[in-house]
């Protein structure tokens, strides 16, 4: 993909933009533009990956989790790694739409729809793994608190139950948040669609939104409070996910730094994934003047900031294990950088902490291609990070007699790459049916008085 270097100081909006032109361009992509060959090709690839995913899961249900590489002591493998990774990716979306909203960061308006969609699809992918990693997935409902004839309840001291509640809540809230944000744009699509059937469908979805003054003010109030609730939620969810490990006594898991650096890692992977998606899309759909270099630069800076926090997490973790003088924890940390998984241990450091440091350089910040590559590397690094956390910690814990190496099988890899299929398929569908940018908020931006627009900053 060829892209010209962009300036991170260019204005958030193209010159001479009007409400109508914004609405026309963005809704046009959905309601007027024909499916391009590029889209069809991309969708085809994504969908075939999805089918592979489906196949792998069918085989899994037929034979059991034994088709994966997991064993004793490493009873958790790819499934949990992928879960943590995907949930993390989701977080950036909520962060951008909620936290930046509360901080009045106007630049978020052109990308929050994007990242919110990303959140939904990432959570969808994540949600599958805890289910399929069960030994008896058909009994998943044992985890739900419902009045049964056995007189039994879930065991509420288990972080896995907290996790189930957190992820479910997170998924539902994200959907609601997404829909509410979408409501006015659905109305726009209703009114701008050329074909009646489109208008009917969007009309039904828009619930008859008319943009009445009182509606708007209640809407704004609700949106503000939801943002206020989503902010602690996004922190809590990955904190709880981190408790899946921190509550355990496994050396390498049992540390208080976990929630802090888990959240940071989550955001980092999310910003990275955001860049991975936005950069090609703004290129292929010619949205460079709406999603500007300034947006990319801001995302990149967030990526850089979080990568520094993660780095600090690694440092603290290592330091504490030395300082605590807990022999088991010390062994695990030493093994992480010198043991059988040392390559992973070093690679993840380089990829998710080292590489993002390039963003300090302006030229890199302004090169979409460079950012694209950095983002991909960072996400690989973060996947490795979770892999090392789960596998390397488990493979040599307290009793040396039960130390064993873990090797992923082809089914492990199929489920990993298959989940990309699900994610991309959903994403390709999204760019066909929903506006990629929040039009109503953009219009708001159009009518800002000059000077009222704050200087950008992350």
């Amino acid at each position, binding site marked *: 993909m060829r892209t010209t270097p962009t300036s991170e100081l260019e204005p958030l909006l193209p010159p001479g933009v009007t*409400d109508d032109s914004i609405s026309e361009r963005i809704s046009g992509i959905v309601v007027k533009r024909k499916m391009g060959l590029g889209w069809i090709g991309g969708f085809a690839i994504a969908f075939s990956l999805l089918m592979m995913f489906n196949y792998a899961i069918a085989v899994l249900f037929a034979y059991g989790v034994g088709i994966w590489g997991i064993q004793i002591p490493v009873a958790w493998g790819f499934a949990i790694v992928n879960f943590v990774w995907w949930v993390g990716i989701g977080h950036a979306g909520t962060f951008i739409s909620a936290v930046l909203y509360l901080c009045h960061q106007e630049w978020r308006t052109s990308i929050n729809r994007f990242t919110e969609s990303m959140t939904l699809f990432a959570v969808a992918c994540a949600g599958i793994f805890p289910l399929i990693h069960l030994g008896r997935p058909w009994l998943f409902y044992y985890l739900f608190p419902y009045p049964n004839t056995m007189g039994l309840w*879930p065991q509420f001291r288990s972080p896995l139950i907290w996790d189930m509640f957190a992820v479910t809540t997170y998924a539902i809230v994200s959907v609601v948040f997404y829909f509410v944000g979408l409501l006015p744009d659905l109305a726009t699509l209703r009114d701008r669609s050329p074909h009646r059937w489109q208008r009917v469908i969007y009309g039904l979805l828009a619930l008859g939104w008319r943009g009445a003054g009182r509606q708007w003010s209640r809407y704004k109030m609700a949106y503000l409070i939801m943002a206020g609730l989503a902010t602690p939620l996004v922190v809590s969810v990955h904190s709880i996910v981190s408790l899946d490990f921190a509550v355990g006594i496994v050396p390498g898991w049992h540390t208080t730094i976990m929630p802090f650096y888990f959240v940071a890692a989550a955001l980092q992977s999310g910003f990275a994934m955001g860049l991975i998606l936005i950069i090609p899309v703004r290129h292929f759909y010619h949205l460079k003047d709406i999603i500007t270099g300034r947006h990319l630069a801001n995302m990149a800076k967030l990526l850089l900031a979080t990568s520094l926090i993660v780095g600090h997490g690694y440092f603290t973790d290592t330091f504490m294990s030395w300082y605590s003088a807990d022999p088991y924890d010390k062994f695990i940390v030493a093994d992480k950088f010198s043991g059988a998984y040392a390559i992973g241990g070093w690679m993840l450091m380089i990829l998710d902490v080292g590489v993002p440091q390039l963003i300090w350089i302006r030229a890199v910040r302004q090169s979409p291609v460079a950012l694209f590559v950095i983002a991909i590397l960072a996400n690989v690094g973060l996947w490795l990070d979770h892999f090392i956390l789960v596998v390397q910690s488990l493979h040599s814990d307290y009793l040396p007699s039960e130390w064993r190496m873990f090797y992923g099988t082809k089914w492990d890899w199929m489920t990993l790459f298959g989940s990309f299929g699900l994610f991309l398929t959903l994403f390709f569908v999204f760019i066909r049916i929903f506006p990629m940018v929040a039009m109503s908020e953009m219009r708001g931006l159009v009518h800002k008085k000059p000077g009222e627009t704050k200087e950008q900053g992350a």
Partner: protein
Amino acid sequence: MSDKTKIYGLLAEFAGPDELVRGTEEVSEAGYSRVETYTPFAVEGISEALHFRPFAVAVIFLVAALLSAAAGYFMEYYASVISYPENIGGRPLHSWPSFIPITFEMGVLGGVLGGVLGMLVLNRLPRYSHPVANVERFRAASSDAFFLCVESSDPRFQRELTESVLRQAGATQVTEVPLES
């Protein structure tokens, strides 16, 4: 008057958001109460112009969140202490620290669901058909048009007088809103 029955109200279009806000303020000052604006985005100052504060929504959010958080905690307490008390790894039956995360999540979930539902209900949504939509031009309200509607049910509503008031307020164009299309 007889014309009250025929039409829903008068729909005035304004050049832009600022004009609309100014116009709305004037119309309100003129004593009209059954007034509503229609805009493609949330124009700042409209609620003030309409003398409207969305207090109820906030209350609903708060109440829903507190209730479901309490429900969540009680569920955990009931299951672990009352229904089937079990010795889990020597932990106390009422291990309240372990019950906090779910309590919080339940609070957020309940709050958001309740609040958004409340917002929709207060906004009378879904409502698929509305008289103002009988005006062909109204379709632009979701893209780039800024409308102010004075409803005929307003006690001060008088077809001609109201129209003149609207025009003085800066409306670029005033059309009748028929009750049926």
